[in-house]
């Protein structure tokens, strides 16, 4: 397997009518990564995702799959979409069949699998998304959260190496978000590379092991979240905010409550576990629980 699974170089794209959505965009996706693509509304996130599976073809620039320039022929696209699965934001844009089981079987059958093999894929995907009990339910009577899971199952059933999701948590309540993230973690542990577009900074900071900040159709910076998201000026220029855990953690470090050698907390739980007691014990209670090394120790953030 190559060191880079998916790569975009100098992508430019304008919609009919003239709006330039991408203008010289570069992005690199290493296998096994959890990459969050961050940007305000209109920054070009959705357009970028549609390029990553060949739905849109750039006016200029190239998308590379496993190091080879993407192949937009009929056969090439089929192969591509088998490798890179895309889940759109609105599940109604991806569901078409009358029942859940039927719908999930669509992708596997398009791959030319036998009926038996397709059935197995469907079972696998239903299990992965924990929606076996919905199999005979009509798609139009599902709740929003259920529809989301079915839409993802429909793509997962094709066993893509890369799963690309557009605002997967939008519209989900806190419990729904937690459940979805747990599912994504499971897929990730099973080897799937994950790309997720969002403007939820806290989500990205807690979840991703790499982020790319998008603004006006270009990636301003790509790198580890604890480095890139420290750059308040960069985020402000992209219309984004610093994640609160990072901001509070940084403030605690600045005021001296977190020793410089320790890292910064990454999630709410880490932050709470690490808050020092007042009674003189200034060391964080459980520094081992903090997963993020201190920003100073880091390297490798790519600046554009």
């Amino acid at each position: 397997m190559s060191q880079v699974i998916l790569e975009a170089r100098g992508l430019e794209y304008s919609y009919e009518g003239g709006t330039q959505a991408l203008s010289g965009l570069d992005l690199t996706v290493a296998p096994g990564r959890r990459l969050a693509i961050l940007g305000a509304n209109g920054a070009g996130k959705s357009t970028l995702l549609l390029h990553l599976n060949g739905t849109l073809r750039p006016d200029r620039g190239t998308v590379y799959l496993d190091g080879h320039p993407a192949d937009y022929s009929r056969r090439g696209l089929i192969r591509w979409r088998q490798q890179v699965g895309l889940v759109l934001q609105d599940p109604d844009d991806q569901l078409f069949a009358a029942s859940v089981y039927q719908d999930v079987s669509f992708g596997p059958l398009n791959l030319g699998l036998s009926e038996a093999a397709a059935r197995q894929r469907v079972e696998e995907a239903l299990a992965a998304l924990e929606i076996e009990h919905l199999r005979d339910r009509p798609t139009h009577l599902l709740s929003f959260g259920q529809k989301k899971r079915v839409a993802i199952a429909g793509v997962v059933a094709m066993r893509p190496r890369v799963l690309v999701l557009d605002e997967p948590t939008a519209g989900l309540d806190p419990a729904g978000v937690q459940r979805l993230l747990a599912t994504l973690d499971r897929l990730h542990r099973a080897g799937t590379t994950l790309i997720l577009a969002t403007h939820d900074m806290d989500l990205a900071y807690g979840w991703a092991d790499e982020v790319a900040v998008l603004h006006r159709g270009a990636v301003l910076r790509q790198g580890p979240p604890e480095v890139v998201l420290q750059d308040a000026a960069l985020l402000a220029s992209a219309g984004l905010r610093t994640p609160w855990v990072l901001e509070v953690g940084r403030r605690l470090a600045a005021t001296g409550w977190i020793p410089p050698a320790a890292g910064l907390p990454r999630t709410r739980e880490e932050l709470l576990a690490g808050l020092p007691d007042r009674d003189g014990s200034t060391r964080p209670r459980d520094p081992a629980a903090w997963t993020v090394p201190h920003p100073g120790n880091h390297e490798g953030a790519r600046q554009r």
Partner: protein
Amino acid sequence: MYTIDRWAYANRWRCRHPVEKLTLAAGMLLLSLTVPPWPGGMLILAVMAVTTVGLAGIPLRVHLRVLRVPAGFALTGAAAMLFRIAAKPEGGWRLALAPGGTAAAAAVLLRSLAALACLSFLALTTPVVEFVPLFRRWRLPPAVLDLVLLVYRFLHVLTDRARAARTAQASRLGHAGIRHAYRSLGLLAASLFPRALERARRLEHGLAARGFQGDLHVLLPQREISIAALAGILLLEIALGLLSAALRG
């Protein structure tokens, strides 16, 4: 959502093979058009009501409500048969009561109600899209079948949107007065169609991501036809036909 559609997924006969339900409904439908409306129509009406409400578990009020609207149309049509056009002695035409018109209208009405009961049974117990596999086996063109699937999907998506839009309009008093109501409906329809087209475009992207190459094939649920049930249905239908013929003769 549509009452009929909801019950089609929620009735006790949901998992029966569509061929069984279709045989019952189609056979009875055929009978209702061929046997004399009195007493045949009455018998069919009764049998279908018992089947729909008693066996399939559809509440009586739902069964009646489904029959009500089309029955209204049938009434209007039958009303026209009560009258005849008569020539006036001084020339020109006038409306007069038709001799035997009441009996003719009643017969048509009864026949229509019996047939409606069959249709309503089928609709209330079988989700529309379950007919698609049957159609496929009958070698209906795939283009039409795909269209049926897609129309079904879109009509639900668009109904949700239309409903929300109506609520939004009502909140802004769009339905205060008949003139406003017409205008609101026009605006709603006019804005819904481009949204429907936009949805089609987005679904194109969504399906392309799943390898869409022109065919909307899916794996269908496998159900067994019960030969016993089928035989029972046919026997019932033959008996009903003979009975209504005998009662009349």
